[in-house]
């Protein structure tokens, strides 16, 4: 078993109450930070820890914090992005449900580091029951003097609010989240200015993922240098992975970054291998928006090195032979899954969730979905494959926010690695649309 930073006490009964949480060392970081450290020291610790944003982009959190503009007399905000809606990702939901105080402790410590006196947790609208769990925990923290005026006699004030969204995927994009939090339509903003300069209510704001914020207490308690010892290279610490798909043990796992992918899939400690003794076909290693990788490329990189669960190793080979860590949604496909259907499904999601603000994404996502739908249901033409590649390329990089890229990448990658399967679907519409039909060409080639 690797080191557990976030999930050490997660299965203790009653950990969602303040009393049990404190018994297991909870809120120690608040006492330590507020009483013995200056805000700059906390930021410095996070910087040395090498903690990277766990929401998807993997941007170093300490760096993001140090970019925060600090004009005199202007309030700053910390916003926690709990709008976890990437298909395949369910780690934050699980963590907040089990251990709400872990997030609140992180929010207090991080807000102190940033000098924010008002902080928000923006939670996805579908997670109403978790909002109630969080609100209960926040009320307990207020009663214990951990929130509110003059926290623990240190002179530092903090108000923590939970705000639910309406359940739009786009509101997980940080500027759309801020718009939504302000009560407006959740459309991403044009950047620059970045949130660190003009964010919530036009004030400097930092937006961080639940997991990033929840990692801060451990860093404050045990020092950043200690955190940096975990993991490999620039991928430090532990990461929650939401493993789903055709595996024996789906669920959330906390891994030390650097575990080999092969071990993660097949070891009983984690996924426990492919279900029903089937063969591995493909893996989406970081949530629906990252490129899909076929079995041979997910286990080993193009150079034949073992692929590890780190930011660097998963993106080894760029988008040609690599993928991304993303938000850590590890989706496994066995040999009985149809890649065309899956790609269409993803595309349908992005079509539904595009905000409709900028033209390439608004029109392109719908176009890709319709073409994929046609191919899946046996009405495709051979040139549709090139059309999809070209449309994906037209969307990518030309949009305001990364949703356009996220819609284009899975389609482009599926065609890059599984082109023969698309061709088979178009050439043999009758066989392809039969119930349970799966193209086995590539798998048979691997076995032979």
């Amino acid at each position: 078993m690797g080191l557990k930073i976030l999930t050490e006490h997660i299965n203790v009964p009653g950990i969602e109450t303040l009393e049990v949480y404190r018994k297991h060392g909870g809120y120690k970081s608040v006492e330590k930070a507020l009483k013995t450290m200056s805000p700059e020291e906390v930021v410095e610790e996070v910087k040395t820890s090498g903690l990277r944003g766990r929401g998807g982009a993997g941007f170093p959190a300490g760096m993001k914090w140090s970019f925060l503009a600090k004009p005199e007399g202007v309030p700053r905000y910390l916003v926690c992005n709990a709008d976890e809606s990437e298909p395949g990702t369910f780690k934050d939901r699980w963590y907040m449900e089990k251990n709400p105080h872990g997030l609140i402790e992180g929010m207090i410590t991080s807000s102190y580091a940033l000098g924010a006196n008002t902080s928000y947790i923006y939670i996805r609208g579908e997670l109403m029951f978790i909002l109630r769990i969080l609100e209960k925990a926040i009320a307990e923290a207020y009663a214990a003097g951990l929130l509110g005026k003059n926290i623990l006699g240190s002179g530092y004030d903090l108000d923590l609010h939970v705000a639910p969204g309406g359940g739009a995927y786009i509101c997980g994009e940080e500027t759309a989240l801020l718009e939504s939090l302000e009560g407006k339509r959740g459309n991403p903003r044009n950047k620059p200015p970045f949130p660190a300069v003009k964010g919530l209510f036009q004030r400097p704001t930092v937006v961080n993922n639940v997991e990033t914020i929840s990692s801060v207490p451990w860093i404050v308690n045990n020092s950043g240098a200690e955190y940096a010892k975990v993991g490999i290279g620039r991928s430090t610490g532990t990461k929650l992975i939401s493993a789903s798909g055709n595996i024996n043990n789906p669920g959330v796992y906390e891994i030390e970054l650097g575990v080999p992918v092969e071990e993660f899939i097949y070891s009983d400690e984690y996924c426990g291998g492919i279900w029903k003794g089937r063969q591995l076909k493909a893996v989406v290693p970081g949530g629906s928006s990252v490129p899909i990788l076929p079995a041979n490329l997910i286990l080993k990189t193009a150079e034949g090195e073992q692929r590890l669960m780190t930011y660097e190793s998963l993106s080894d080979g760029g988008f040609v032979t690599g993928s991304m860590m993303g938000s850590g949604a590890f989706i496994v496909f066995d040999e009985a899954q149809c890649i065309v259907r899956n790609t269409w499904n993803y595309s349908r999601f992005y079509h539904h969730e595009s905000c409709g603000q900028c033209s390439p994404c608004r029109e392109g996502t719908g176009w890709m979905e319709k073409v994929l739908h046609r191919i899946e249901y046996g009405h495709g033409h051979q040139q549709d494959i090139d059309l999809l590649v070209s449309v994906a390329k037209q969307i990518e990089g030309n949009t305001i926010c990364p949703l356009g890229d996220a819609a284009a990448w899975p389609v482009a990658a599926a065609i890059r690695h599984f082109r023969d399967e698309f061709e088979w679907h178009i050439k043999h519409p009758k066989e392809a649309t039969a119930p349970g039909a799966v193209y086995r060409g590539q798998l048979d080639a691997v076995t032979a």
Partner: protein
Amino acid sequence: MAKVTIDGIEIEVEDGTTILQAARKIGGKIVPPAMCYYGPLKGSGGKCRVCLVKVTQGSAKDTRPMPKLVASCITHVQDGMVVENTTNEEVLNARKSIVEMLLINHPLDCPICDQAGECNLQDLSYEHGVSAQRFEEERRTFNKVDLGPYIQLHMTRCILCYRCVYTADQITEKRVHGVLGRGDAAEIGTYIENVIDNDFSGNVIDVCPVGALTDKTWRFKNRVWFTKPLDAHRDCPTCSGKVTLWTRGEEVLRVTARKDQYNEVEEFICNTCRFDKKETSDWTIEGPRHIDRSSVISANHYELPVLNVPIVPNLPVSTKKNLPQE
């Protein structure tokens, strides 16, 4: 002051100017097109993406190029910035692809559209568009919405530039106009099909780059290119009263605000001037209005502004036909 080079032409502009405005200062063929940006409206721009340009040198201090194409209407210039617009193939290809995207759900009903002849999308697709259509799916359609006695909303033609939303927000008092829905199902709406009722509501017609919002007092009366624009003014208690009259013979068919060559109004006008004063005797006529746009409204001036755009684009193989050899 910042020195910026656009397509090899150097110009000095004030700090805080956008690339698009700097290009408009130079003028001519190097000005990126703009479908959603509208000078008089605060916060507009960045949505349609047709004004994308390549910044090959960020500034004099930081000479690295910007990694992606940037929207010129919202990107501010830096001293020493080098911008490529019509000289960069990547930009022209991206623009072509965005025009294609804008057109896939547009009905292309120009023959029966009142905006035809002064439509920004028509000009844009003529200049940068592709002549073949790759989109074979069903198009998105909406029912026509009645916004009171003066304005007709035809959402099917809308390209969601948000200009009318900003207009309703910024120049009229009670906002009733916004965007409902998401993605390609998003629509301009007055929740729910409310009548827009205020003195300046007619301006949403002027800012609309396509024929989504049209003037009911003008609909189907005539074609734009048959009418003669005249500058005129009247003593109006609510607005400046400076307008353009579109006449045919003695008849005033339409009244609009005065627009410059980028289709931006000089001054917003009130509904009384726009819809109710349709007699020549209501107006003091100043003289003919010079329309400085390469479009059919300035008859015989329709030319390709960007000469190096290949007219035959990268068509899918299936649509290319071999011409018979003579």
